[in-house]
Every structure is written in C-alpha cells, then in structure tokens.
C-alpha cells in the first residue's frame, strides 16, 4: 500500500448505523444485500467497517459471561466512578481514608434533575465549588443549587439537599440564599443550609446569618455555634449548632450518641436503595465518625460495634436485624 488507508467521520457513522440496523434484523436478506453494496463502495468503507467489527468482537468475547459483565459495568456506571470524577474526588478527599467507592446509584433523583439547577450532586456524591467571588460551596448528597450573580446581588437558590457555605471576602454585593422556607443573609461567615422540604435547617459555624421566613417575614439572627430550623411562617428555637452538619464536607458522618434509626436515615441519604431497621433495634445508639464515601463499610462497622446483623436481600435492599 503506497498510501495508508483512511476514512472520514461520515463513513464511520454509516458503518455504525449499518451495524445497529443489521443487529436489529439479522435475517433480513435485503438489508444484507444493501449493506454489502455499501461495503463494496471502497477501501474507506471496508476499513471503517473493520473498526466496527473490532468493537463488536471485543464485547462479543465476553458474551459467555455476558450478564455478569453487563452487571459489572452497570454497577460501575451507576456508582459514577468515571476517571474524571475520581481524579477530582481523590483531590478533594485526600486525607480521608478511602476504602471503597461502590454502592451508590444515581437513580431516584429525577425530581432534582427536572429542576435543571446549575449545580447538582447525585445520591452519595459530594462536591466542592469555588464561585467567582471566592465563596466556597460544599454540596452534599442529592443537592440542587442555582447561582445567580449580577451587578448588585449574589443569590444562591437551594432547591434540594444541603450546602455548606464559606463566604468570600471583599465583595460588596450582598450574598443571599433562598430556600422554600425563606431567605438567609450571611454576614461574613461559614454556615450550612439544609433543605428539608417545608423546613430549612441552618447551622452557623462562623460569623452570623440573618433569616427571614418567606410568608410571615419573621426574622432571626443566628450566631456562630447556633442552629435554627424555620419554615415559611415561623422560626423554631435557637439550638446548638450541629457539628455533623459540617463534618460531611470533610467526608465524615458524625454521630454523637445518635439513635440508630436516625443514623440510618442519614446514611441512607448517601445511598440509593432501602435500608430497613428492625423495630427491636430502635433503642440502640451510635457513637463515632464514619466515612461517607463507603456506606457498605459503615454498615460493616455498625455490625462490629452493635448487636446487629446486616441482612442483604439485594444490593439496594439492606435490613438491619438483631443478632
């Protein structure tokens, strides 16, 4: 061959198209004849087809273990372990011991997806972002958030989930966070906002945040070390800020003498699928810090520490029963 054979995108597209159509109708003689005609048009077509065949063979070589192979790749896909994501997570979570990343699925977030928010995380996913003004955001599992900056305002809209915010310095435009329950205005600060449907939970770790209920207009000022839950009408009592509402940004789930059922509810928000707790276990309490990136590992740790057994029906259905 004096010149190396080659083909263009369109030819390869045709080849892929033929592949898909032939597979749909393997017994269609007329289709086969048409395909042959296309194939014999030239060297480019034949070469393009050889690439299609090569891919087909590579998949075909696993057909004997096809369903297991499919299951393997599907669980990796649903776990969102893409190379790019891993690179960023390895960067962000450096220092937190990582034992495994499997066990998450991306389903069940349709409601959030529908919102088409600018910043989203899937179930089990946590991510940090730095906004143009230097404000840092940590998005917890299953979170949807929009950022709107203009010349006079910086506004964040939390639709679902939870965000930890560390405001940047030196921007004169006021920063605001809107939730279904109302408005939050930080004053140079670090705080977390969690959407619980009608309720919004605020925890302030530095500085202070002013809140306004959406309907009644009732305001409250929450200082560092304090937490508050409010809805559209009214504010709840000021309570001590919850350390665990910040710990997730460091990849940790903190339990300070927490009822098992509440702990599992929290853990379940990082994992799609069902975790059931036998009512007989409701009196148990959990203490410690647990890695958020591996809920299977956490379940194993619980099994070691408490008189419980983890019963696995399916990957997505786990029940805790007395041992």
């Amino acid at each position, binding site marked *: 061959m004096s010149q190396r054979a080659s083909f*263009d995108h369109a030819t390869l597209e045709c080849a892929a198209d033929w592949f898909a159509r032939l597979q*749909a109708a393997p017994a269609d003689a007329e289709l086969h004849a048409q395909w042959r005609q296309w194939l014999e048009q030239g060297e480019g077509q034949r070469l393009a087809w050889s690439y299609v065949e090569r*891919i087909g063979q590579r998949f075909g070589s696993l057909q004997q273990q096809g369903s*297991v192979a499919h299951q393997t*790749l599907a669980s990796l896909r649903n*776990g969102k372990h893409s190379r790019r994501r*891993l690179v960023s997570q390895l960067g962000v979570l450096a220092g937190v011991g990582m*034992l495994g990343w499997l066990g998450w699925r991306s389903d069940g977030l349709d409601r959030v997806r529908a919102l088409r928010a600018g910043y989203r995380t899937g179930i089990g996913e946590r991510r940090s972002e730095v906004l143009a003004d230097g404000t840092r955001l940590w998005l917890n599992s299953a979170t949807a958030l929009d950022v709107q900056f203009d010349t006079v305002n910086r506004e964040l809209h939390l639709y679902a989930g939870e965000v930890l915010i560390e405001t940047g310095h030196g921007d004169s435009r006021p920063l605001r966070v809107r939730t279904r329950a109302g408005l939050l205005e930080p004053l140079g600060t670090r705080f977390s906002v969690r959407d619980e449907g009608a309720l919004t939970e605020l925890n302030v770790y530095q500085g202070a945040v002013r809140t306004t209920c959406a309907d009644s207009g009732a305001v409250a000022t929450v200082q560092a070390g304090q937490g508050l839950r409010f809805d559209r009408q009214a504010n709840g009592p000021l309570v001590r800020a919850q350390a665990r509402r910040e710990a997730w940004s460091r990849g940790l789930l903190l339990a300070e003498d927490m009822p098992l059922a509440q702990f599992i509810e929290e853990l379940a928000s990082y994992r799609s699928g069902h975790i059931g707790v036998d009512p007989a276990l409701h009196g148990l309490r959990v203490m410690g810090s647990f890695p958020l990136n591996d809920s299977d590992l956490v379940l194993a740790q619980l099994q070691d520490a408490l008189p419980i057994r983890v019963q696995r029906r399916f990957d997505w259905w786990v029940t805790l029963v007395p041992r």
Partner: protein
Amino acid sequence: MTQSPPSAYHAKVASLYVDNLSWVQQWIARRLGNASDAAELAQDVFVRLLTQPREFDSDSHARAWLSRVSLHLCVDFWRRKQLERAWLEALAQVPESHWPSQEHQAIILETLGQLQDLLERLPPRVAEAFSLSQLHGMSYRQIGELLEVSERTVTKYIAQAMFQCALLEAELDGVLL
C-alpha cells in the same frame, strides 16, 4: 524539547528517584490508605520516566509532574480495584459452577477495563442500551421496554454508541481523515 543522551538521562532519573521516592510513596499511601500498594505504585511512577523520557526545567516542575502521574496511577489503581470488586459482586449472583477459571477471569477483567473506558464516554442510557445489547444479548425490543423508549430509539442508541467507540479506536490508530 532537547533530550540528554540515554546514560546521562538515566543518571538524572536515578537522582530524581533518590530525591523524591519517599514523598511520592507517602503521597500515594495517603490517598490509597495502604502502604504496600503505594510502594509498588511509587516505583511505577519512576518507571514511567524511563519508558517516556522527559526533561524538567526545575525541581518544582519535576514535583508537579510526579504528583500528576501519581494521581493518575492512583486513579488507575482504584478503577482496577472497583472493577474487580464489581465483577466479584456480580459473579456472586450466579452459581459457582458457571464461574470462569481464574486465568480466564484475568482476561475478562482486562477486557472489561477496556469496555469501561469506552462506555464511560457515552451518555448513560446509550451506554446501558449498548451494554444490554452487546453483552446481555437482549433484543432491541426488550431494551426498548426496559428503558421505556421505542425500538427506533434503541437502534439510534446502538449506532451512536458504536460510532463513539469505533471513533476512539480509529483516532488512536490515526486512520481518520
């Protein structure tokens, strides 16, 4: 980029190795949480310098390259571990009498790794449809029912997936116009 003659280059790599091995090893160990794998991966980082020679302008340039390569090797390592784990979990669902031999499993994992790289570039539904068809051997009608789309759409998904996969291979081979 100018390159030193091989012997001089080897001497440079040797001195980089001596100066940097310990922090590279710690850097990787911190990310993997496992010292023995880290020791091995750290060697691979420097092996790469021998197989793909390169020159550095400064110590900080060398350090930046070393940490970048370390990160990539960590990612490869993790992906491999995840793949193995996912494979074993999936395998546990079928009777042991159907399990391929250990040797065959190693080949399968190698191939699965390549398929994962290919499928990961596709939109999830397209990847799912392609995998169901090519691995699971499902008909387009079955796939359509599962994904709640028409057979026509499934055909499109399959064509799209095949095009993207073949495109990547063709680009790597440099046969595209």
